[in-house]
């Protein structure tokens, strides 16, 4: 009994030590869970009112058009087939609109105009993509660019053809000296 009474505190200390070192590397699971939940909730939120329907309605992809190939498909075709890295999703445009609107000021209207559907040949693989024009409109400010978008995830792969504005709003930044270690 005496031995047991001596052992218990040591056991408790040991548990406390293990817990302490674990917590240095591990993220508290509750915090992790809460954070993941908040990301999922954010993804499920309805679109904010500040991102209205574009004036030229383009929310629904039009009747599927034939995809254009970019690159020489004969180079990578094996057995008459291409190996694709993704599969087009019907709601790629909605996903894109959501990601572009995330964090965007409430006074900014975003328009997305699909231009063409492509198959980009990347080495030995092929990827379904969509080429769009994105236009941002806010008071006395208009910006646009072209974007290549993953047809499955709606993620922007690359942008180009950015607007050349003569009088761009400048942002003055407040500097803080980085503390050296």
């Amino acid at each position: 009994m005496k031995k047991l009474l001596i052992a218990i505190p040591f056991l408790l200390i040991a548990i406390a030590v293990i817990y302490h070192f674990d917590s240095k590397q591990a993220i508290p699971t509750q915090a992790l869970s809460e954070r993941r939940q908040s990301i999922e909730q954010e993804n499920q939120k309805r679109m904010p009112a500040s991102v209205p329907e574009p004036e030229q309605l383009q929310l629904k992809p039009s009747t599927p058009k034939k995809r254009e190939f970019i690159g020489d498909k004969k180079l990578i075709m094996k057995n008459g087939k291409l190996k694709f890295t993704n599969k087009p999703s019907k709601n790629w445009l909605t996903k894109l609109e959501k990601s572009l609107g995330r964090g965007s000021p409430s006074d900014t209207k975003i328009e997305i105009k699909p231009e063409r559907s492509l198959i980009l040949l990347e080495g030995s693989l092929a990827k379904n993509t969509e080429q769009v024009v994105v236009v941002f409109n806010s008071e006395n400010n208009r910006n646009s660019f072209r974007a290549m978008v993953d047809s499955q995830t709606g993620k922007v792969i690359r942008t180009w053809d950015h607007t050349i504005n003569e009088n761009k709003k400048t942002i003055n930044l407040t500097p803080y000296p980085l503390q050296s270690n």
Partner: protein
Amino acid sequence: MKVVVRNLLKAKSAFLAVGMLILCACVPSTQSPKKRSVSGGSTTNSPSSVPATFGRIFSDNPVVISGNAEYPTESNFNTLLNATKDLVYLTDAQTLTNPCDPQGVGIYVVTTCYNALPDRLQPPLVNNAKKWAYDANGAEFVQVNAFGHKKKMLDQWFSHQASYVGAFSLLPESSLKKDSALTEQYFSNYAWWFSPSTSLVSWANCDLVDNAFFSPAETAICLGRDLIDPKFWLGQDPTLMYHELGHGLTQVMLNSRNKMEGVGVIPYNSSLAFRSYDEGGVLGEGIADWFSFYVNGRSHFAEWGLGRFLNQSRPLRESDSSHTAAVSEADDARLAYPDYLFYDPNFTENPFEDIHYGGQIISHFLVALTEDIKQECSIDLPSAKQLTVGILHEALAELGDLTSKGHKSGKKGFVNLVDNYDWAYEWLRSYNSINIRKFAQAMARKTYQIAGPGNITFTQCSPAYSKDRIERLWDSYGLLLFKTYNLNGSSHFDPFTLDAPATPAQAIGHQGSALSVSSANRLRTVLVDKSAVKLDPAPGAPPAFVFDDRAQLQAVANSLRQSNGVILSEQLDAELGFNNGNGKISPGEFVGVALNLYNDSNSTIAGVQILASDWQHANSTGKLCANQGDNFPSSEAEGAAPAADPECTLSPIFNAAGGNPNSNLDPVCVVQLNEGSATKWVQQDELLASMDGLTSNDCLGDDPKSCFIRSPKGADVGWMSSIDGKKNWFNTLPQDENGNREIKGHQAVFFEVSPWIAPGTTFICRLRVRFSNCNDCYHDVNYSDDDYLDNDFATGKPFKMVNLQFTVVD
């Protein structure tokens, strides 16, 4: 055109109030436009006074026509029109629209090539009688005026283009043809325009205050209006149309090859500028300014659109009266780089960092080149303009080539690394972007090949424009920034197999002569060694400055999203709620970092570029290469690869499949990992592996090696316009009238900081720095100062390494 907002609204309001009371004669004019007789001007400009398909447009802007720098908007603008001299053919259509027939033979025509609308989504002006004469005081006239001047410039450009393409490109193989960037598909592939079916629209009554833009995505030119005066439109000034259209033609020229040999294989377009300030932007503004001279031959532009209320018109040559006395057309008094980057001729006492002011160096250089070609080649000014724009076209077409061949007989990798459009685009955007040095070298190369002795069987200039003359002119502008003309390009591929060479010496880019510059001609241009750049050594000086104010970084994120399509990770709060503005790098933040760089030389360095892009600095097992110039890490125990590791000595080899067989390009930031009693530096995927409860789904993006700290593409390149000798970057920035220096976002690189980083975690980001007037950032001493091969820019070799260490704190 740049409208500089600083204090101008205040100045303008004051001016309007006071100016109404003070006689105009009391206000001195900064320029002396020639007074033009306006006899023949009537009080109206009625449709009945013109034949069908004709109309009247201003011969120039109202300041120049009237000879009055303060020409009041209350005036009757119709009196600025000459009934006969200003009568021009406009269009045979019932709306302002025209086809383009670049060769004038009815082949390869774009039917609706360019048109005019009041504004976006507004219907066009319809005139069934096709009589395009409207009251010059009204908005319709502005549309007609803008359309007419667009037609004027395009007619000239197409005419010149047909001539020089025919002269340069269609010669027999033994001649210049092989060196030309333009091919026989130029017209048939519609490489001379945006596309076979695209219309370049101008919105001449654009609802944008004190602004104008060119949108390649919408293929549109917007000319806005004045904040206060409803009668003042930028479209009343033809030179502003020339400038904006100049941006459009720059886009066309830059992408010529992507539409010729790149048709069906290149999905993107090249561009010059990517940040609010970078040297590509400086080049773009300078070229656009030059296009005004290209059309009207004058030494100044935008006297009305920018000068009337905002005092921001700009000169185009040193002899213009708006310049200070120190500036002249003497070789040692030209508007030289980098001395005049901040120069505002309207407010010389208030230097300001802006691409439009730096662009003046380029516009003046191009005007001087045009005049020099006229003189040296004994041709008239129109012919000199034609030859100059042809040289410019060849240079831009080569620089923007995403097929990587560069010209007709070029092999892959000549420019922009490799014939893989993603890699080529990345090289253009970040790794070896078009800066002032690259542009100056390309222009010299093309001038040598087209007008110079570069091709003895081809004579666009007789006697040839001499090599010495090229170098002296370039040097007078501080643009002799290169030691060779790089005639052999930058390809790292084998000349016979077009596969990777066994050694760099065998690479195409090091074969044959690059053509050396005569060092005796470099009198004004100063090249500085990269060793002069370091972190500020002053006692107590911080290694960098951090920007983490929430509102400011929200604005930065919004600007990057709209201008560059940068979309932040979903791991960060959408509203940047974790940004706490405490000047520390904390979990969950989006932060900017500006290196506190110091120039230890006695000369100004310029075009300072800070890269946070992925690069080759680790071997295939994740060990860090310590031979990149920073001696980091200091030992294998600390995470360094073995000293003789071949993966750290071999240059990367890029193939068209997008592969890089030697090694990967890895994210710049590595992390300190505690292992028992030792610490070592590792890539971020190792930290992820060591953390219980986290998976790759919790990373900032798809790459576990940038799981916790990531610089998103588009925010991963910073630009400092210049750093004076013996100064740091901050103290080089111009001061305003209160002595304050403004820091803008383009000087920083930006990082996303994962919310999952444990406070106390230390990172080092291996940033690479170079600048435009750098001696050893471009010239490889192992190959007689030939330019580095393009794949070298994936390593540390051409750069000055600056390691940024920080600890993430709560």
